[in-house]
């Protein structure tokens, strides 16, 4: 099929052909081979399945597929058997024969190996991750048969660029990279700019420690990102795009490279896409270990081959971005929503989530929690539902203490705020941020002062050094923390932390500096007693501080 | 204030060159006016052995460099209503704090000063109080109410701050201080 130059009507045919082809199989065994499951031996499990179906002579009715992430990363390797969506957990090559024999040959699912926590999936709403774990990301046909690229075809065949922007605006979609700017509005700005060429940059520089949603998306459904970019390009009039991806994600890079090559071969990228007069080229750009490069203006500097130092806005990238040309910068999660919005209409999208915050959001759920993994939930869901219903609460009978929302520059929220609905505005109000969707749960053995110090250290390391507050200020805050956690803290320190935190938040140049004090300010707000305990009593209940860190 | 109705003022000399005290004296004829309103109850320029109780204003020159000074500073703080850092050494550490950037132990600092760099009769000092790890500005150890920066601060600035305080006003340092 590769190498075929697709025309508009061909898509449908490819999809039907592929569906027929897949229907020939009675079972489909999806083995998750994403970065989360591979270290647990997923590739060996895949091989074992391929061998076992042959051994039992069921290879004609079983399709063994190498797929992306299903989301239950803590119990990998995960295997999903369709029909019926039977999810097996912690599968080992030794157990594969049993599964094939009982489930496929005898038709009796192996109950004690099934993933038990049904609530994990019940409260989720998988739009962006619609195909994750269900299609083979290395086969474009899989994506097409799942309805892929039909939204692009719809755009090219029946919609004007303004029409596309209208649907996106109607959908109320907001940027999933963290700031939550209206996507439709942004597209409108770039579309209006009369300066050519225009560019699109897809942000896959997921630098937040504790976050892996974008990586998972790229590994599981790369074409959703590409299709979203194509539609965006059509809408704003761009002909060149870059996906900026962390070099720490080798599998995602590989998957995307392959996907781009396939799309090019099928004339879904390049000149005359789908035989229409629409042209779009796509290149990957690799990050190199700089968190700040995820910032909107820093990513531009990085794509241009410079030090990733942000610059003040205005001028906004919509007017003056890459090489001073209009540039649309969008997180890949935002882009993956686009095909659905085009396909189903903007109004359909507003029915999901809340009225001000439509749609869903992916969260990486980690820390002291029973079911860590990647989830996608409708906006407006409460923190409690995420932490306890989906996440299964804190393990080992310990007590929940705090939840960190929004990555290293997010906020530490106490149990009194568990009923808070997750949306951009509610989170900002309590001092946290949506960020790129990191949720880290802390139990009663965590020290909040130590936690705030850890995040400050992260931001000190990752500050680009351009502006005074972030560079010089955060380093001072870190020193104050060193003092407090080593026993030389003073009462004045609390006021100094608060004053400089507010200053850094207000006066820093970019989002990194502006949000970096969040962990400090929120822990001061909700866990002041722990600071006092450290300063006055020189005690750390959690036993994390007052160790001689600086030996020699 | 005491029965004399005068404001009780003390001055202390820690690790500094005494230049700030010189500047204090450089207030010249204005000292006569000051003397109407203040009583000097402790100072290196007066022969008083003990730091008294109930001091209204204490001006301190010099950085905090050793344990004896730390004890002195704490006493002064406890017995004074208003504590003022006088001059850059007290405000920033200044020259005294140059050793901080050297990042060496107190013993090495002493050896460098008394043995390596000595031209005549190098000898290990045995009466120097134990040095603190770093020479520090005063406000890193105790609460300081006002700061008069400068190396040395001008007599005018010292006079301005004292006059304002005596009049019950808060001195405004904007555009007045001469840092460094």
């Amino acid at each position, binding site marked *: 099929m590769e190498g075929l130059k697709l025309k508009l009507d061909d898509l449908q045919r490819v999809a039907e052909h592929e569906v027929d082809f897949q229907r020939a199989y009675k079972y489909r065994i999806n083995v998750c081979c994403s970065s989360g499951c591979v270290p647990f031996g997923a590739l060996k499990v895949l091989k074992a399945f391929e061998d076992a179906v042959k051994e039992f002579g069921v290879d004609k009715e079983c399709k063994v597929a190498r797929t992306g992430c299903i989301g239950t990363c803590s119990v990998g390797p995960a295997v999903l058997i369709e029909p019926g969506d039977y999810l097996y957990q912690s599968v080992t090559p030794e157990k594969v024969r049993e599964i094939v024999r009982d489930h496929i040959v005898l038709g009796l699912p192996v109950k004690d190996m099934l993933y038990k926590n049904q609530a994990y999936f019940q409260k989720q709403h998988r739009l962006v991750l619609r195909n994750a774990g269900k299609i083979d990301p290395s086969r474009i046909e899989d994506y097409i048969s799942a309805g892929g690229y039909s939204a692009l075809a719809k755009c090219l065949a029946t919609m004007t660029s303004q029409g596309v922007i209208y649907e996106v605006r109607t959908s109320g979609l907001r940027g999933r990279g963290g700031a939550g700017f209206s996507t439709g509005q942004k597209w409108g700005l770039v579309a209006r700019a009369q300066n050519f060429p225009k560019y699109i940059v897809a942000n896959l520089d997921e630098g937040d420690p504790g976050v892996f949603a974008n990586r998972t998306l790229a590994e599981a459904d790369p074409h959703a990102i590409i299709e979203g970019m194509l539609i965006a390009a059509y809408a704003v009039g761009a002909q060149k795009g870059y996906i900026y991806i962390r070099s720490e994600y080798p599998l995602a890079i590989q998957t995307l490279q392959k996907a781009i090559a396939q799309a090019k071969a099928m004339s879904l990228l390049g000149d005359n896409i789908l035989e229409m007069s629409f042209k779009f080229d796509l290149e990957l750009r690799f990050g190199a270990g700089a968190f700040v490069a995820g910032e909107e203006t820093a990513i531009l500097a990085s794509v241009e081959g410079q030090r990733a130092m942000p610059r003040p806005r205005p001028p906004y990238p919509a007017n003056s971005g890459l090489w001073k040309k209009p540039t649309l910068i969008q997180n890949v999660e935002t882009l993956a929503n686009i095909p659905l919005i085009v396909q189903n209409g903007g109004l359909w999208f507003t029915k999901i989530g809340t009225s001000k915050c439509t749609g869903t959001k992916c969260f990486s759920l980690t820390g002291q929690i029973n079911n860590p993994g990647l989830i996608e939930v409708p906006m407006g869901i409460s923190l409690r539902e995420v932490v306890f219903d989906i996440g299964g609460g804190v393990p080992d009978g310990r007590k929940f203490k705090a939840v960190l929302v929004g990555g290293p520059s997010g906020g530490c929220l106490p149990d009194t705020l568990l009923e808070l609905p997750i949306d951009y505005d509610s989170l900002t109000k309590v001092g946290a941020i949506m960020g790129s969707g990191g949720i880290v749960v802390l139990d009663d053995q965590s020290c909040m002062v130590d936690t705030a110090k850890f995040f400050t250290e992260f931001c000190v390391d990752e500050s680009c050094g351009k502006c005074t507050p972030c*560079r010089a*200020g955060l380093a001072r805050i870190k020193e104050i923390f060193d003092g407090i956690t080593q026993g030389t803290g003073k009462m004045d320190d609390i006021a100094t932390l608060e004053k400089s935190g507010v200053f850094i938040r207000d*006066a820093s140049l970019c989002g990194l500096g502006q949000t970096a004090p969040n962990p400090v300010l929120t822990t001061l707000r909700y866990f002041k007693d722990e600071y006092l305990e450290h300063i006055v009593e020189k005690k750390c209940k959690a036993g994390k501080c007052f160790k001689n860190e600086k030996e020699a | 204030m005491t029965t004399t109705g005068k404001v009780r003022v003390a001055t202390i000399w820690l690790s500094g060159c005494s230049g700030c005290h010189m500047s204090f004296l450089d207030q010249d004829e204005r000292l006569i006016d000051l003397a109407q309103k203040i009583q000097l109850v402790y100072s290196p320029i007066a022969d008083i052995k003990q730091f008294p109780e109930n001091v209204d204003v204490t001006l301190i020159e010099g950085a905090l460099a050793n344990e004896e000074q730390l004890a002195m500073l704490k006493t002064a703080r406890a017995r004074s209503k208003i504590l003022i850092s006088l001059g850059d050494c007290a405000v920033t550490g*200044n020259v005294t704090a140059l050793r901080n950037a050297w990042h060496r132990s107190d013993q090495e600092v002493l050896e460098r000063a008394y043995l390596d760099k000595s031209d005549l009769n190098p000898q290990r000092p045995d009466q120097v109080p134990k040095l603190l790890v770093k020479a520090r500005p005063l*406000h890193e150890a105790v609460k300081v109410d006002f700061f008069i920066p400068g190396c040395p601060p001008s007599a005018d600035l010292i006079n301005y701050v004292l006059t304002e305080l005596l009049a019950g006003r808060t001195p405004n340092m904007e555009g007045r201080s001469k840092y460094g």
Partner: protein
Amino acid sequence: MSIGTVKLKIDGVEVTVPEGTMILKAAKDNGIIIPTLCSLEGLTAYGGCRICLVEISGSPKLFPACITSVSTGMAVTTNSEKLKEYRKMAVQMLLAERTHICSVCVADEHCELQDMANQLGVDHVMFERNWSRDEIDSTHDFLVIDRNRCILCTRCIRVCDQIEGVHTLDLKLRGKDSQVIMDLDEHWANSCSCTSCRKCAKVCPVGAIYIEGEPIGHTKRKDIAEFILTRRNRK
């Protein structure tokens, strides 16, 4: 093509300036001086020091005056209590960042950071100071760099690139570890591209780059970039 004008208010005073003017310049041309450190006329704006932050009514954010252009109807406040407080804070952070001891510095009394502290009434630093101890590079015949005094304003880098045109200087590393370097972080004497033009010493706001044996008041020339640009453009 005619350039339009823009009417706006700065500190309550109505001013009219050409379109595209930066707030800093618009204020200066109308007698309102906004304090700055990294900005220098004749060089591109950097927006790093955050001293020139101003308020624009209707926005909760603060804007660097050096790099924010005017727009019609804008009402700018340059000197509110909050801004003064923030400027003091920025100066304190700079003073605490490396080793600044004015009394032993070549730039004493000719230092823009020191002036700024005095002007704003910074009478002490609330943070414990970080005593940096970087090697002083005095290998060059007469140019010296003491990075312990550097405030990373990048004026030297910009003048080297934009006016002298050789780009000997740049920054290495990032964040608090950032340093001004010559070529591949060579000693100055080994720099293959440096033309020894002294412009970096002339624009350095502090005592980080200076000329050995020359009184600093004689070296410093804040208008050098603009001066050269004007001369170049003279037909």
